[in-house]
């Protein structure tokens, strides 16, 4: 069986997380946390959520304020975002389903106890003043996906190739919780200039329409390249490649039809 | 915070749109006068339509409609009256228009009083009066455009 392939920015970041039991919304994937396997290849260990994950991604005044306010109300020495271990993920589709009962967000708890529950008819029995289930075994990683996105990419000769726009993942990393393989980094999609997102139009020669929007976005990113993980030398402040710029695949080659099951490569297939 | 940064200019626009800018010369003043006459005439026309069909409308509706019209006319009066006429010849324009809008306001006020009491006494005469003033206002508007 071929391992599943996903794009971090397109298929995971900012997706809705729902409960695997009853489908109720849990949170958004505000960020992803990676760690390195024995070969030095990063793979995803947990989903980060909450203002301490979203704030740094937003940046600017809004992001800093979001982080500052949250830290003000968190008693810990070094508060971190809430983590959902990747091993709990049971389905990745138009939403990401997680099993177990994740800890309730602090703001939800606060709003319920202080604002909503005191109002008549809120459906609330007198609330016990404790937050629902405690954290499910912390798994801390070493690298946030959002810091990988947007990094400058330099080739072996030190020439700037562009910046990371998306990260291609393949589900053949180490085992997580004995049930599934981790998504490991398989390659980087590098765009030549700061033109923002690819909106999914990088997929396939017959990518989604409308034709005009597709042509416009492809045109903006026409010199985009695909860097395989083997071509990456070091992941420092800049991504250093061991290959020369001319040896990199153009992005359009990524989905050149090679076999009949090509259709399944264009993203997650419905479970 | 992004929201609040858009609120400020919008509130400013909302507030400013309620004010009238000063008149720079006689021509500008004339244009302002014409605009005020137009808006007063428009209010009067609506009152006239309502009075002509007063038997088809409810009292509370008429009351609200006339109250709004009085407020509108009063607003025109005080807003235009607040603009400084730039020359002595403009004084005369000012006087004529304020007479007309004042008359309009009086008429509608008296209609409002009648409606509040026990209905409009003589709708036909009222329609005629309103038509007269509205026509004068329209003529004034034509003359100053």
């Amino acid at each position, binding site marked *: 069986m071929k391992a599943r392939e996903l794009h971090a*920015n397109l298929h995971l970041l900012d997706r*809705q997380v729902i409960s695997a039991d009853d489908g*109720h919304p849990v949170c958004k994937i505000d960020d992803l946390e990676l760690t390195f396997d024995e070969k030095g290849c990063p793979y995803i260990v947990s989903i980060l959520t909450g203002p301490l994950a979203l704030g740094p991604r937003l940046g600017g005044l809004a992001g800093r304020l979001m982080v500052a306010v949250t830290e003000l109300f968190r008693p810990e020495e070094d508060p971190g975002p809430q983590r959902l271990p990747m091993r709990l993920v049971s389905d990745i589709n138009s*939403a990401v389903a997680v099993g177990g009962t994740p800890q309730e967000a602090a703001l939800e708890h606060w*709003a319920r106890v202080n604002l909503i529950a005191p109002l008549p008819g*809120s459906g609330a029995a007198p609330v016990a003043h404790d937050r629902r289930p405690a954290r499910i075994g912390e798994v801390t990683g070493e690298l946030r996906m959002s810091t990988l996105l947007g990094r400058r990419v330099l080739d072996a000769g030190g020439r700037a190739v562009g910046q990371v726009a998306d990260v291609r993942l393949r589900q053949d990393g180490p085992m997580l919780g004995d049930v599934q393989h981790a998504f490991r980094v398989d390659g980087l999609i590098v765009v030549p200039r700061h033109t923002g997102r690819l909106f999914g139009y990088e997929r396939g020669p017959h990518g989604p329409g409308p034709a005009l929007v597709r042509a416009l976005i492809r045109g903006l990113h026409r010199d985009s390249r695909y860097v395989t993980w083997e071509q990456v030398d070091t992941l420092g402040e800049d991504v250093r490649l061991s290959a020369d710029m001319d040896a990199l695949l153009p992005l359009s080659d990524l989905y050149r039809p090679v076999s009949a099951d090509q259709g399944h490569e264009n993203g997650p297939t419905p479970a | 915070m992004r929201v609040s940064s858009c609120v400020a200019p919008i509130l400013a626009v909302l507030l400013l749109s309620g004010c009238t800018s000063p008149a720079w010369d006689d021509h500008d003043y004339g244009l302002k006068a014409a605009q005020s006459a137009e808006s007063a005439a428009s209010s009067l026309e609506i009152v006239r339509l309502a009075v002509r069909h007063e038997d088809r409308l409810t009292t509370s509706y008429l009351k*609200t409609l006339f109250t709004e019209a009085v407020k509108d006319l009063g607003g025109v009066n005080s807003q235009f009256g607040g603009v400084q006429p730039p020359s002595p010849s403009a004084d005369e324009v000012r006087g004529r228009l304020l007479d007309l809008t004042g008359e309009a306001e009086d008429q509608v006020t008296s209609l409002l009083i009648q409606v509040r009491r026990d209905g409009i006494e003589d709708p036909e005469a009222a329609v005629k009066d309103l038509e007269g003033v509205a026509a004068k206002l329209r003529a004034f508007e034509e003359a100053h455009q």
Partner: protein
Amino acid sequence: MKKLFAVTLGILTAFGGFVDIGDLVANSLVGARFGMSLAWVVVVGVIGICLFAEMSGRIAAVSGRPVFDLVRERMGPRAGLVNLGASFFINVLTLAAEIGGASLALELATGINYLLWVPGVALVAWLVMWRVKFETMERVFGLAGLALVAFAVALWQLGPDWHELGRQLTQPPADEGAPTYWYYAIALLGGAMTPYEVFFFSSGGVEEKWTRKDLVTSRANVFIGFPLGGFLSLAIAGCAAVVFFPVKAEVDTLGQMLLPAGIGLGQLGLAAVIFGVFAATFGATLETALSSGYTISQYFGWQWGKLVRPRDAARFHAVVLAGVIVATALILTTIDPIMVTEYSLIFSAAALPLTYLPVLMIANDPDYMGDQVNGRFSNTLGTTYMILLLVVAAAAVPLMIATKAGQ
């Protein structure tokens, strides 16, 4: 049979729920000043809202994701946040206008100043959102809004010169400048395509747990209900064009806007129209208030909606409550509700591409849609509208400044 009944009920709800204070104000103003010469904009707007509401309904049915969820998913957190700020601001402005409209309707019915009604309207609206089931709420006010059909009857009763109305379709009045004409065209488009309509429509679809089987219902609502609503809009404009346009009277209060119904149909018609306006604006109060909760909750991934008890969606209900309080406070400053409506229309028009572009992109994404992706027809029309909306968005605020908000 039961299915047919449900579909009919849905259509009637969409029909009665289409017109809100924005459509009412924009169409009356335009009818009085420009006759029927801007009727084409209503047609363009109705086709546009049908197109994008159908897409968002289809997305909701196939993938179970509401619109604002997708806005962030596709535009990213930063562009999404800007979008959220704009949408939330417009939503609260519209909410204020709707509360004002419902209170004005009560003033017309009772003769008691509208400001006294504002807190009561807001409180009752909040109670309905707090306690009443989604489906009941949507149906009751949608159906009550059907009383606005009185405008169409009134137009017919006024016995207009249809020939003259037809002539106006292509001939704008000579004494109005081009900037004002286009300014009001944009306001009308903003009224017909208000973004909260798709937020509400798609969130409603998710709340009612639409699946592929419900695509028929969704499409029937959109393709029959909305055009009927657009027909009502045109009837409102037509009434104003018959009564006010010939005597060059401009309307600027809600009372004036309802005068044609009274003249055409007498006290009974007037009462029906006042009731219809109240139902429509009160229904829209609920829709906009809930939409403000939907947008924020869906951006941050919170639990939202009315299917769970309020205590289980605490942040969502807190946002809705805060929205209602802010909007009520805004109206209680004695700011003119009709003016608030006019501004909300223009800002809505300026924000249209922000909402509709992600919808268009997702409706094309096979990951979400499977075999239900847009066809060639939807895409051609969608692209055309995208270009149109971008032009409108760029022109809206400059035109507002140039025409001093249409004076």
